């Protein structure tokens, strides 16, 4: 945990997770890249529109009985609407939580910089190897990054197009996000609303 100031407006910035790569200033919405040397301005974007959500940045509570803290989120826009990808700390570990049109998924396993076949040729129903995992693609879609707030584990500039794959593997939900620069794969499970308890 470290305390700094926003490079744009000077507001105090408190980084809670040592893996956070970007911090979005809650005062001026400047996106600040977190590095060992300090905070570098990545850009300034409008604040995210307020949509009803189970979390807010800073929310605490339990998920499946384990304590969590919501650190930040990225919002994506796609054909069916938008979804939020929350970066959370769950029982001391990094985890990701998506909220999509009222449905929730908790991803606890992250596979970074995995190899996947040519994304353009992938179709629904196809088996692909992501790293050493065989997954079946349920859906392939396109989304655009709308923005973010709080601390972010990944950072993709707002306006960037992302190709995502929803898949299943070994009884887990798998989400693969593919940008020009990197590919990440998350594995997790769906959650019911009752599995999430937010304090206050």
């Amino acid at each position: 945990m470290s305390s700094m100031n926003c490079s744009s407006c000077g507001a105090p910035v408190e980084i809670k997770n040592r893996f956070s790569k970007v911090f979005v200033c809650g005062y001026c919405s400047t996106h600040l890249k977190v590095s060992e040397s300090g905070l570098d301005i990545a850009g300034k974007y409008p604040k995210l529109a307020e949509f009803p959500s189970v979390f807010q940045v800073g929310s605490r509570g339990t998920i499946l009985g384990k304590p969590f803290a919501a650190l930040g989120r990225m919002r994506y826009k796609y054909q069916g609407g938008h979804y939020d990808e929350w970066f959370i700390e769950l029982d001391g570990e990094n985890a990701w939580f998506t909220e999509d049109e009222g449905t929730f998924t908790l991803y606890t396993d992250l596979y970074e910089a995995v190899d996947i076949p040519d994304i353009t040729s992938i179709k629904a129903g196809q088996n692909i190897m992501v790293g050493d995992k065989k997954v079946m693609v349920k859906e392939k879609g396109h989304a655009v990054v709308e923005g973010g707030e709080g601390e972010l584990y990944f950072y993709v500039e707002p306006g960037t197009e992302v190709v995502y794959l929803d898949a299943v593997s070994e009884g887990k939900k798998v989400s693969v996000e593919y940008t020009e620069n990197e590919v990440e794969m998350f594995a997790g499970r769906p959650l019911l609303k009752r599995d999430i308890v937010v304090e206050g």
Partner: protein
Amino acid sequence: MGADDKKELKALKCAKCGGDLVKGSRSHYDDEEEETVTIPVARCIQCNTEYDQHTSEYYEVFADDLTYDKDSTVFKLGLKGKLKGIEYEIIGRLRYQEEEEYEKSTWDEWVAVSEDGVFHYFVEEDGRIDSYEEYIPESIDMESSGSSIEFEGKKIKKSEGYIGRIVLAEGELPWTPEIGEATLCYDFKKDGLNYTIEKTDDEVSITKGEKLSHGEIIDAFNIGGYKDLYANTLKKRKSFRWESRIYLAAMLFCLILSAYSCLGDKPVPGVMNSKSIFMNNSPVNDAEGSVYESQILYGPFDIPEGDKLYNVSVQVNQQVEPLNLEWLSFRFMLVGESRLNDLSEGKINDSALLGDIFENIDALPEPLESYVIIGDFWDEEGRDSDGYWHESDLSYDTDFVLDDAGKYYVYLELFSNNKKDVNSVVFAISQSKGYRYYIVIFFVFFILWGVSKIRSRSYNELPFEMSE
């Protein structure tokens, strides 16, 4: 909505020329049905292009035929309820038509959101309701095998898949469907649960479901007006079920009675023990040519009880002499000893006199016989459109009620186109119980059973279909 709006909705365009599409039909020879069949198609009024049920255009044109009963459903948009402790709200509906069916064969998928933030699907089809939700299998492989899908160790044949086409979409849906959009569906059971895999070009959806009763739905969604109708329907169905059981029991009872009556026949002994042959294969000329005639008198024998039902069975004994591509006619007469005695003036043992009496039996002013049976046996072969055939009829039997017990004779006349051994025709008389009315009411009970069975499944006071 004005008339112009309506016209605009109907103005579907041909993909080739932009012409309007209308309902039409096409006739073609169906190899499986082995006949010419007429199927519905959408047709362009300008370029005559046809759109069959494998095209989206077809469903746009025929949508009204496939959705006319869209309001005859249990679920309605906006319906809220609590099922098994979880609150649901019905927010959307998709109606699918099975692509391979020309007739209406639809099902509704109602999209509900639960308080738990999960999309839920209630499927209403042919009066049955199933509840489905997303399922993540331990393993699934849809492409490794060309002929089957591997699902958690179970093989699902791809040939069992069917295509559903969207014909109605309303309310809030997780995606924006189009009329005619195709979904490949696989329904299967595993460990007692229902699973469905739905595959479109863009997405694979895997859901697990269970059957729900209409009562559960009516209670859960508080569809108050239907509670009494549902209770009445169940009560009536139960009553019809009981009726069907009673009729089934009655059918079994009739069968037992028939079997008892059938097996309880008591043969009259010694009917063929003694015989006198008056004529043995004598040629006789009649209008149809020459035939051979034999006359035999069997008896006397005792018929022990009067006012009883008796059965006479006459047949060709193939072991004595088979009937082979020929015919044989018979006349069987049951003759009371007392009448024969009266007619012969007591000379009943005078064989020549008896022969003379029987030779002229038809000329007697009063009938001598107590009963007569006439019949034919035949054996034929030939060819027809199905090819070679060989058929025969070698037995005859009938029932009658004999009023008086006593001693009787049987006078048997045989006519044949070839000479036949007189011993080749045998007969038996037995005291019978009769069972025809038990058979008749067996069929009456069968019909009643069928009707009550159908009604126990189909009786319905509700404004929507409800299966068992």
